[in-house]
């Protein structure tokens, strides 16, 4: 059974439909990517999936109808989002940000301590800056903090919106390495990216979203060589 199943989902702002009849599925342990140009509706799709935007259609997580879960209940069940805007707590310290990442597990203080140590081990930069306010971090560090904060919730499915956004190439590489390594923790990932090549190299399966609709889908390796995809997204002119 798919961990996340999205079936014929549409999302509208006022009268404009930003996502139209999108269907996709993520199996446990899979990394799935959605690529597409700016304004294609990728971020909107993730916003609807996490419950921040109203939507029509059917969605379920781990067999539970998502209409029955609010955002917070999704987080408690291990369905998390790292949004494009990161949404860190700028006025709070790095360690407080991480601690609050584990808010849904706040009664498990031993587990939280362990997770915190794991995150610091994975991101030594965050350990160095644990008492600094989140707003003083650089772009790359922010992205690490956003990832670390999400990991504190012990996610089973993590949705990442443009994790490479605004990062230097060397940091982008690092971020994708981390994403690939999350698979070993058993975390499934839905990755939304404009950096199509890096995304397809990391993912198992890919979808191409254009003006709110899925126009191609397939194994990531196949999409990499699909002429329709290479022409538009991989700079193969």
């Amino acid at each position, binding site marked *: 059974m798919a961990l996340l199943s999205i079936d014929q989902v549409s999302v509208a702002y*006022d*009268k*404009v439909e*930003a996502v139209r009849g999108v269907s996709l599925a993520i199996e446990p342990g899979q990394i799935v990517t959605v690529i597409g*140009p*700016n*304004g294609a509706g990728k971020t909107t799709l993730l916003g609807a999936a996490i419950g921040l935007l109203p939507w029509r259609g059917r969605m379920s997580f781990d067999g539970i109808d998502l209409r029955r879960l609010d955002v917070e209940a999704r987080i408690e069940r291990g369905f998390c989002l790292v949004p494009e805007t990161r949404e860190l707590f700028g006025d709070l310290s790095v360690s407080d940000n991480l601690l609050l990442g584990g808010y849904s597990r706040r009664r498990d203080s031993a587990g939280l301590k362990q997770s915190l140590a794991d995150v610091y081990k994975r991101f030594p930069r965050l350990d160095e800056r644990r008492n600094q306010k989140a707003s*003083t971090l*650089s*772009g790359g560090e922010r992205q690490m903090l956003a990832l670390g904060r999400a990991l504190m919730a012990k996610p089973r499915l993590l949705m990442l919106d*443009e994790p*490479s*956004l*605004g*990062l*230097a*190439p060397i940091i*982008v*590489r690092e971020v*994708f390495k981390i994403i690939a390594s999350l698979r070993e923790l058993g975390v499934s990932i839905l990755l939304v990216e*404009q*950096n*199509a*090549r*890096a995304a397809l*190299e990391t993912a198992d399966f890919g979808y191409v979203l254009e*003006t709110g609709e899925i126009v191609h889908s397939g194994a990531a390796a196949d999409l990499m060589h699909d002429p329709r995809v290479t022409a*538009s997204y*991989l*700079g193969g*002119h």
Partner: protein
Amino acid sequence: MTRLQFHLVAAAGVLLLALAPALLSPFSITLMNFIGIYALAVLGLVLLSGIGGMLSFGQAAFVGIAAYATAWLTVKAGYSPWIGLVVGVVLTGLVAAILGAVTLRLGGHFLSLSTIAWGLATYFLFGNVPMLGQYNGISEIPPISIGGYALSSSNSIYYLIWVFVIVSLVLSANLLDSREGRAVRALRGGQVMTESLGINPFRVKLITFVIAALLSALSGWLYAHMSRFVSPAPFDVSVGILYLLMAMVGGMAYLSGAIVGAAVVTLLKNSIQDWLPVISPGASGQLEVIVFSVLFILVLQRARAGIVPLALRWLPRVQPTPPLASGSLVHRQQPERGQPILTIAGATRRFGGLLAVDNVSFEVKAGEILGLIGPNGAGKTTMFNLITGALPLNQGRISFLGQDISRHAQRQIARAGIARTFQHVKLRKTMTLLDTVLLGTYGRTSSGFFAGVLRLDRAEEARAQAEAMRQLQRVGLADRAFELAGNLPLGNQRLLEIARALAADPALLVLDEPAAGLRSAEKAELAHLLEALRAEGLSILLVEHDMDFVMGLVDRTVVMDFGAKLCEGTPAVVRSDPRVQEAYLGGVA
């Protein structure tokens, strides 16, 4: 319904109003008088809060200033009520101008909080100044007399009140249908939008604030001479809230909402006063307050739009008058093709420790389309904001048509001839397409508030309308000129923004990601339009993410990455540059 039919209905309404004293009981006329007096103050509130977006809890204080002014002048100094009117209006206008000058730069809720503050301060002032009778107030105010005839009965002052109401309503409607009135209606779109159209939002806010206060002053003057007694209570913040309730019930966004709301709430108040003592003889006073507050909260929770928009759905629509469309506005002489029109030299902008734009230099030449591209987060939007003046430069220099604009405010830059569009379309959803594009002509026209109110602006207005229709035609939206901007699909909204920008007759058009979210057919249409504009000699700077769209269209491209300029050249040169491949096209391997 045609325009003529509308005028006939309006005339019939006025006739009915005129006949009312013959048809209704004296008590009903007294109620009508109160409705008219409230409607005047609420009309100001609708202009200020519903249309201009400045929510005020303190309008009752302005009513009070004029009422006390005329009360004191007529009772203590023995002047005629007409002197009281003049002094009351002037005094209220002065106080409003001072309060407005001090508080109108405040954003959103802070502005509204300040209205509570001065509303309360004024109330306590009335209650403590011995000259004004403290909490006992001033009584035995003489009636207004016209040509020796004293308007001392309800029936006689009735006409005066409703003449004031109808004249104010017509003049306010005139205002909203004029150049400055459109600026008032645009205020809620935010400072960046209004400034980009060459409007000085602070000035427009201040004048609107004073106009609203003056309408309150008229209300206060009539109130003082009708009830022949003033005390602090009717000018408290709680009454300011009652005005707000009236405006909301009627419909904050409609001038007619003022009269409808004043009537509904006044009649309701009256009937509540009738039946509350029956239910609870001892506690009717506080019950009334509770009932009204609860009612207000329910209106705010469930029916914020009010009665008028509901009623309009059932009433026939008045056919729009086709624009007069005669003559044309003066057009600028575009600079000679190939001349540098915009020069950016060493532009730098920091946010905290982050260098968002790092020493960037480039030029836009007259008659070309220049693309500014780069991955998300490369600093394109910051660069855009530096050019349009939405952000100040930290270092560097930007000159436009030979003039240094580095330190210019947004609206000065707009007036110098740079027109822009927005990545997230900034339109007023409830304005028609024609009015939206007319906003663009603001910087090319000059009729002020007075001219608008008194309809002295019609010749210029006709020229502006002709211009606006021409721009709508150009983007292919002319046949929908009287539809509301909010009803257009996104692609057309972008075209509408371009038409609005073109109506300013710019030398340079700067577009912020105009293709984002468009379908391929819409993109093709947009590209076609931009090519046509270039052929007419307009220069265009295009900030875009969509490579295909940019490369097929532009003459030259500047590529930014990490805040710095990566390279510059024709599309072919840029495309083959390995640095661009790496940075932009995702060369992570």
